[in-house]
């Protein structure tokens, strides 16, 4: 049981680090490098350096939350299954 708890928390920590890197990417790196995209236009969108901060990073931010939530649900289920298996033994 103790091992399982430690295993679960290790997985959560790993996931947290991955998402932290993703967050730094959308909250610091993309906004700061956006001015390099000045003049890049796709279809009817405004220039990408503007649109990155006014739209794109927010959408990625929303997606990241739902992805994290789905991954954590999977991990929670895995833990529950393992706990019940251990109880059977």
């Amino acid at each position, binding site marked *: 049981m103790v091992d399982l*708890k430690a295993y*679960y*928390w290790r997985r*959560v*920590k790993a*996931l*947290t680090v991955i*998402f*932290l890197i993703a*967050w730094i990417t*959308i*909250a*610091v790196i993309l*906004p*700061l490098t*956006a*001015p390099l995209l*000045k003049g890049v*236009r796709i*279809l*009817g*969108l*405004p*220039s990408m*350096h*503007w649109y990155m*901060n*006014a*739209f794109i*990073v*927010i*959408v990625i*931010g*929303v997606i*990241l*939350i*739902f992805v*994290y*939530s789905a991954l*954590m*649900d999977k991990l*929670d289920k895995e*833990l*529950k299954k393992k706990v019940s298996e251990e109880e059977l033994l």
Partner: protein
Amino acid sequence: MNLTSPVNATIIATICWILCSVITTLIGGEFLGSLIIVIGSIFIYLVLAVTLRSTSVAHFYVAGREIPALVNGAATAADWMSAASYLSMAGAIALMGYDALPFVIGWTLGYTLMAFTIAPFVRKSKTYTVPELLERRAGGWGPVRTTAVIMVFVMSLTYLTAQLVGVGVVFSRFLGLPATVSVFIGVFGALAYAWTSGWRSITWVQFLQYFVMITMYCTPVFIAAYFLGLLPFPQLQYGNLIQEIEMREMAFNLPLMTEPFVRSIGGGKGPINWIFFALVLMLGTMGLPHILVRFYTVRTVHAARVSVGWALTFIGLLYVTASLYATIARHSFSALWGKPFAEVMNTGWIQKWLPTGLIKLEDKNSDGILQPAELIFHGDIVVVGMPDMFGMLWVIAPLVAVGGLAAALSTADGLLLAMSTAVTRDIYKRFINPQATETREVLIVRILLVIIGFIGAVMAYFALKDPGFGVYVVLLVGWAFVFSASTFTPIIMLGIFWKRLNRYGMIAGMITGLLISLPYIILVGIAKLPPIELFGDKIGTIGWGIFGFFGNAIAAIITSLLTKPEGPEVDKFVESMRLPD
């Protein structure tokens, strides 16, 4: 049919509201009709709140922990988006262009970080308030709780004042009623929704208010987009509009709206200040008490995680629309540049808004032609003036006011309740009368709601009466994020992910954070000393908060390592936060 069920009662109230508005308009004309439309909306929320009345402490503190994820997400969004987001943000973008975008990313991306570092763990702690969570994390040490309650007040009271000022602004901008008096109408509304059953009633009222707010925000901008041929998805199609604006700006040798880092924001300038400013807003978001409490009100940890996603979806919807708003308004304004003065003066919406002072026109070089510098507009005109710029039906304007009122009231409610419950549970029940009965606790919450609401209203009254004081209210709201980012946020994150953090570390961290950010605010923000420069960029008072955040974390870690660990009880509490149900 059960007339007292929340859904039915709300529908009936809405029908009454529509009927009353139509009848008043037919009898009394447009002005009275507008008045009924705006004030009647307060009445609908009141009906919903009354059907949800309760005297259970769990309902008051955490809405009985039974709110579904999507509802909680919408309520968080309403809690979050204030009168300033609704009325002024689009205006800030129209005026400052690229250099106002830190508001957009700063007030949204904090939720992404919060989703995997704070929200689910706060729910798992099974506590009722943030000060309580911090006290348990500090091994039941009272001073941490008291300090936290004081911080809750420092952040929430100024913010509440700003919301009530916002209510006054909505009434005066749209209806021409005196803002000072309207403040008291606003505080009555906010009080009443929280009075009936605390977080339970305001959560559902906020849920309703979110949809009111977003519908009313989008209506004029979508009508305008229709005139400009930007439907069906104006947020994805306004590229050409920006290009037209840029061409006009180039023709008059102005810095482009989309040009990065040319204007100052928050008292600083340049890319470093720009990103610091945004980051402090993000980190500050995560420590604001009325937002944190939202994650107590959901059913499960799973719901807590998902509800952050919904919250950002709903918030993002308004924030990505703000830059569209700004673009359309700037397009309308820039269309007037270079035209003869007489023609500009004859434009309908200019005539209507000139007397309010939101637009100023002056032929400085007396050439009879309007130069860009001769047309000065206040940021608020972007949202409140949009219906007139495109000659929309009169009824659109009061509907936009209804949305603005919903934005101000929903935020005021969350703040009022965060403060009242903090005093009741964290001071009264914890230190004064631990044996208090449920009825007693509910009574205290209600009394405090009235007292704090009144204090907020009086402060808002003075802010509106004395513009000098009003300026500080606006600044204080920004600084609330600095305080939040340099006190609560690092402590809560460390408390979850680092078991070794102890009570002394927590106190040392919060004090260090304040000692770093507060003097800078006083010296640079109030005493107007020149800001510090980093690599040639001036750092404003808000951007400086980033040092408060890291200073806090470093002081907390060093102090914890130098003093003895908290022991097995706190370890167990931390473990219980980390594991699923």
